């Protein structure tokens, strides 16, 4: 049986919901419906949508490849200074993305310590490239995967892993055959969250990567630029982004409920 919700929670709960729902509904009303299809299928809009999806997927893969192991280390190891390591990972959740973009620029920019080295020695310039977009998105999206996965790992506990170890499984076998299957739902929803965060990323991208159609101008950057000249186009593409975001949330939530 479900517990009863106290009545006095209903009003603030409704207000909280409306705060999000009404502006989004306002967007739907403001859309220039007769021209909607034309507005969202201009070559520039399609290029932005495609770049966003591609870099979002690349970001998700990078978060899995590097954030996944980090979450396991945070949840399972007994390294000294673990709280400190964790707070650093969580920093992008709190930092304004523009600050993230500036820090990346100072490190990987042409005059930065790493970027300068790459530029001189190998002729590789990171800013203004699609790689810079992925780097900026990974910076802001990584904590989403790490937090969800670490939570899933802690909730699952270490019992099965301990049993597997007593039965003679190596740590690697235990990881692949026991840990990963157990936390798979958490891994999935964490990845989807990271993808969603990458899709909405703006500040770090425009600061670090710049804005050029087909190379660095993702959907949020495109919408920001369009709002200067063609508000109808900006509104139409905003709605596309909202729809994609809702799809992503639905996908990740249905997995959670199962």
């Amino acid at each position, binding site marked *: 049986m479900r517990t009863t919700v106290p009545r006095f929670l209903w009003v603030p709960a409704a207000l909280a919901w409306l705060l999000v729902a009404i502006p989004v509904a306002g967007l739907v009303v403001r859309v220039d419906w007769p021209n909607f299809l034309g507005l969202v299928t201009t070559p520039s809009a399609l290029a932005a949508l495609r770049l966003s999806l591609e870099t979002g997927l690349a970001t998700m893969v990078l978060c899995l490849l590097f954030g996944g192991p980090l979450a396991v280390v945070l949840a399972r190891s007994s390294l000294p200074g673990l709280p400190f390591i964790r707070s650093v990972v969580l920093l992008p959740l709190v930092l304004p993305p523009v600050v993230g973009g500036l820090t990346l620029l100072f490190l990987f920019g042409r005059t930065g310590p790493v970027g300068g080295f790459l530029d001189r020695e190998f002729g590789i310039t990171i800013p203004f490239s699609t790689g810079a977009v992925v780097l900026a998105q990974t910076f802001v999206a990584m904590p989403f995967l790490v937090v969800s996965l670490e939570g899933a790992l802690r909730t699952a506990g270490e019992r099965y892993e301990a049993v597997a170890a007593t039965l003679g499984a190596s740590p690697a076998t235990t990881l692949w055959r026991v840990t990963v299957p157990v936390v798979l739902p958490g891994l999935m929803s964490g990845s989807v969250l990271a993808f969603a965060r990458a899709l909405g990323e703006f500040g770090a991208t*425009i600061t670090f990567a*710049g*804005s*050029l159609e087909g190379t*660095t101008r993702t959907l949020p950057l495109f919408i920001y*630029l369009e709002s*200067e000249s063609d508000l109808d186009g900006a509104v139409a593409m905003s709605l596309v982004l909202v729809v994609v975001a809702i799809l992503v949330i639905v996908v990740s939530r249905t997995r959670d409920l199962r």
Partner: protein
Amino acid sequence: MRTRFRAALMAGTAAVLGLALTACGGSDSGSGQQAAPARTLTVSAAASLTSVYQQLGTEFQNANPGTTVKFNFGGSDSLAQQVVQGAPADVLATASSKTMQTAVQAGKIQGEPVVYATNSLQIAVAPNNPKGITSLQDLTKPGVVSVVCAPAVPCGAAAEAAEKAAGVTLTPASEEQDVKGVLNRVQTGNADAGLVYVTDVKSTNGAVTGVSFPQASAQGAVQSYPIGVVNGSQNADLAQSWINFVRGQQGTAALQQAGFVTK
């Protein structure tokens, strides 16, 4: 714990209120001293005029005791829109004739606005011009990373007009949202060259060098600065003296100092 928090909150509120009261008191006592009646002139001006206008505002207040000049700086488009919607302003000074026309067509400007200054493009490069850039053509050389404004924004439209006049097609590494974005790329060394306005180069105090090029004066590349008195202004006479002041000796000097070409 909770009472202490509440006490702190109340102390904070009291402090804010106190400040607000002192602020009111200050302006009251100021007007009592002078024979001239206290008047406030509201000037809506393009963001690129900020430093010049602030300096001129102080000089204007000194020359007209009892007068306070209040500025509303912002994007020309939104300033013109605000005036059209009836926002209280005495003077409108935009950074393009197009935005001024929005207000003129809505019947919000008295008479004809005058263009008193222009601003033109320069190529911003690192100090001492390490890549030896002397023309727009040089930006297309291999190994030169150039940055411009997006064509949808005024500085990008100006850049496009200059490119057309020069018969050059640039392949920028990035198209920025505004001219400060371009300047920032050059200042941080991530771009070798960027198209910005002369006033932007001046504002960096030598952090970037400006390279002039002939096509900067091409049609559509020059940014003009019109100014006009807002219709229905309660201080139309004062608004007109501000315009005369900006076009006068002090105004001209300040504008030229900032890199504008005065008319």
